[in-house]
């Protein structure tokens, strides 16, 4: 057998597949991350996820195999030849199998558990127990309708069952009034818990009862609370009818807003699809620790401007914001042509982005931006120390002013389309409920951040003698989730002066509750670390440590959850769940403050590719996450989880900066 082809044939046969595979690897790297993203949405084709080097090898072997096969068609004699063929086939198949396993293992951490299309799974109705199902089969909704006339509602939303003849519900067997009492749906008898269970045993089929105090279903056989949307609907229709409404009731506001198309996910996709730069090339080695991610550059302190530097660092790495500016979202030429005055904060921010992502690591002085910002916020123009949060708001305002005028003011829903609002703007819902009649007036306010009070919980484990078991150590520590709970808690409004209730036509006690109607792409949480003492007429900074999570699910703070919980344990969906926007967020920047109200220093911690970096004006170092956790947070920036992971992928594909060796922080003038 003769395998010795003329050398030119051999080179052609081997060079062709190699070149093809190399060419393909260059072209597919660009779409790698996009493919990753689309995979996470609906997984299909596994072959695209073979790592680049293995892909090339696989193709190479495939062509080698083809080559041998072509050749073997003519000369099939030799056994050794057959063995070599088999061996090569074996190699190819093992490569394919290992790739397959790699895909399986790799895809697990990458696959996103967010159920993007079907919404929040925790509020889908739980399956009814067998007994509830049987009850419904035999009695349908008649029992619920019968119960409706016994329902009594108290504002702001508590429903109970009350028989008109008896003021005090008593157990029919033991006359007891202690504990929970249950109203049997079949025989309308009221019993305490023990006798309810006995009742089920003695009377066949009397399984389903209603908790009198709460108007909630209870299955006596399963000994557990059960849920039925029809029951909740029956209770809620009675309740909602009972609560008086104004002319434009809550429903109309809700309907109007539900009909609006969701802003977030549409814009997010659009910004994400914009390629960062056309001349990106793929990187084989993604874990190059010696190289800092692109865009990380120190900012010189131009005279107490750490407040500005800290917020700028956070903005530089807010994924949608960054993508917009790096993809020429704000065109400098058009901007100058369009407006008479040269003042445009967005242009200067564009300049900062260009400087930061240029690859140059020497600390940059954002002097032009500072000057422009001074022009914009004349009242803050000084060398005094300023508040970072104030600066953040004024910058967003400055961007909006310029862009809001030039662009189409109202997009699809009447929301502003300027980049500041597209990225940071969310919607807060505020409900004020009259304590007397239950009338609720709802307002929706847009916001670019959420300012939270510290939850200094008054739950101190002081009196040890009285409490045999000390609660968990965390009870006295403030947490971010605790602050959010405090923010969305029902707050009794002061009685001086009382608010005017439209329905009662009088001044009444009322209760206010905040919730988040629509989440932004980037959520900025600001902690109000100052307290004002009206007695001493002084303000003081609160240095209390606040624990904050790196990942957060905002579902419990959405309007749908808060309004739902107001009425007890219900499955009834209020004004549509905001199911199409993801509620999972990842932190990417923390602005910390050290010092007092009058004088202090801001430092930003950035999280890029799951590594934390400390940005202290011109000095940037890698730090451990423990240091970040222990820091005193002032503003925290969370981005939607999907955008965070996409941003990480993008960073991985960026070329290594030319100054590749260890990062040398160069102290700037201070």
């Amino acid at each position: 057998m003769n395998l010795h082809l003329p050398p030119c044939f051999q080179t052609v046969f081997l060079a062709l597949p190699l070149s093809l595979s190399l060419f393909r690897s260059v072209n597919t790297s660009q779409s790698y991350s996009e493919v990753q993203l689309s995979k996470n949405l609906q997984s299909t084709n596994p072959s695209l996820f073979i790592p680049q080097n293995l892909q090339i090898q696989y193709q190479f072997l495939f062509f080698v195999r083809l080559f041998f096969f072509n050749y073997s068609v003519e000369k099939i004699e030799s056994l050794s030849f057959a063995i070599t063929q088999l061996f090569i086939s074996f190699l190819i198949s093992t490569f394919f199998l290992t790739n397959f396993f790699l895909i399986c293992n790799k895809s697990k951490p990458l696959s996103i558990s967010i159920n993007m299309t079907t919404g929040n799974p925790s509020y889908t109705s739980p399956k009814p127990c067998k007994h509830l199902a049987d009850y419904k089969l035999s009695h349908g909704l008649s029992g619920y309708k019968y119960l409706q006339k016994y329902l009594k509602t108290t504002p702001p939303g508590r429903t109970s069952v009350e028989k008109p003849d008896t003021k005090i519900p008593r157990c029919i067997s033991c006359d007891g009034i202690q504990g929970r009492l249950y109203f049997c749906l079949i025989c309308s008898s009221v019993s305490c818990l023990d006798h309810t269970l006995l009742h089920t045993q003695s009377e066949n089929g009397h399984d389903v009862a209603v908790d009198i105090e709460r108007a909630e279903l209870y299955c006596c056989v399963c000994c557990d609370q059960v849920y039925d949307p029809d029951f909740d609907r029956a209770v809620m229709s009675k309740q909602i009818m009972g609560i008086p409404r104004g002319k434009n009731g809550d429903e109309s506001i809700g309907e109007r807003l539900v009909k609006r198309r969701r802003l977030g996910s549409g814009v997010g996709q659009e910004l994400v699809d914009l390629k960062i730069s056309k001349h990106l090339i793929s990187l084989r080695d993604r874990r190059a620790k010696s190289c800092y991610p692109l865009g990380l550059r120190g900012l010189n302190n131009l005279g107490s401007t750490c407040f500005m530097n800290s917020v700028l660092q956070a903005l530089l790495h807010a994924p949608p914001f960054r993508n917009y500016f790096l993809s020429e979202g704000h065109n400098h030429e058009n901007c100058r042509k369009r407006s008479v005055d040269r003042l445009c904060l967005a242009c200067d921010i564009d300049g900062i982005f260009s400087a930061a992502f240029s690859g140059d690591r020497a600390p940059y002085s954002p002097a032009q931006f500072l000057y422009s910002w001074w022009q914009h916020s004349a009242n803050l123009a000084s060398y005094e120390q300023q508040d970072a949060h104030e600066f953040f708001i004024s910058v967003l305002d400055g961007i909006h002013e310029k862009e809001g005028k030039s662009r189409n003011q109202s997009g699809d829903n009447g929301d502003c389309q300027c980049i500041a609002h597209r990225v940071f703007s969310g919607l807060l819902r505020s409900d004020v409920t009259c304590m007397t009649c239950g009338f609720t007036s709802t307002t929706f306010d847009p916001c670019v951040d959420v300012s939270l009070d510290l939850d200094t919980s008054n739950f101190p484990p002081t009196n040890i003698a009285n409490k045999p078991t000390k609660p968990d150590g965390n009870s006295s520590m403030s947490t971010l989730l605790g602050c959010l709970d405090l923010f969305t808690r029902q707050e009794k409004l002061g009685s001086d002066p009382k608010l005017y209730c439209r329905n009662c036509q009088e001044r009444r006690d009322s209760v206010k509750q905040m919730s988040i109607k629509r989440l932004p792409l980037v959520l900025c949480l600001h902690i109000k670390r100052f307290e004002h003492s009206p007695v001493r007429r002084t303000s003081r900074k609160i240095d209390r440590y606040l624990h904050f999570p790196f990942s957060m699910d905002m579902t419990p703070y959405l309007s749908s959850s808060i309004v739902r919980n107001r009425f007890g344990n219900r499955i009834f969906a209020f004004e549509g769940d905001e199911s199409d926007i993801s509620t999972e967020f990842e932190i990417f920047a923390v602005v910390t403050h050290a010092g007092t109200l009058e004088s202090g220093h801001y430092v930003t911690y950035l999280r890029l590719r799951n590594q934390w970096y400390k940005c202290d004006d011109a000095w940037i170092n890698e730090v451990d996450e423990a240091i970040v956790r222990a820091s005193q947070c002032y503003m925290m920036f969370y981005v939607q989880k999907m955008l965070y992971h996409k941003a990480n992928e993008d960073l991985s594909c960026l070329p290594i900066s030319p100054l590749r060796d260890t990062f040398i922080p160069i102290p700037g003038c201070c």
Partner: protein
Amino acid sequence: MRASVNRPPTPDVGDTQEKQPTLEEIINIKFIESGEKERLMELLRERLIECGWKDEMKALCRAFVKKKGRNNVTVDDLVHLITPKGRASIPDSIKAELLQRIRTFLVSAAL
């Protein structure tokens, strides 16, 4: 659906006559009838939320459910779990306030 057909057995006449309402029961009945109990319940709910007790109990329940698994927990389990801890951890200030209110009520009800 009417109460006529499936009524539980009528309690014996002898039993009810022997039971004397205790002082606690009398007070309780007076409370409910006048509506004071409902007002005090609302006040108590408000105070317990303010001081963070409700969040504590919620956290306890969450931890328990996480440990046991969502489908293996009943409401009764949770009630039995948090009743002793809950009762023990109510702050004294709240107890004092409520006792004061009850005392005032009793004086006014002239028992």
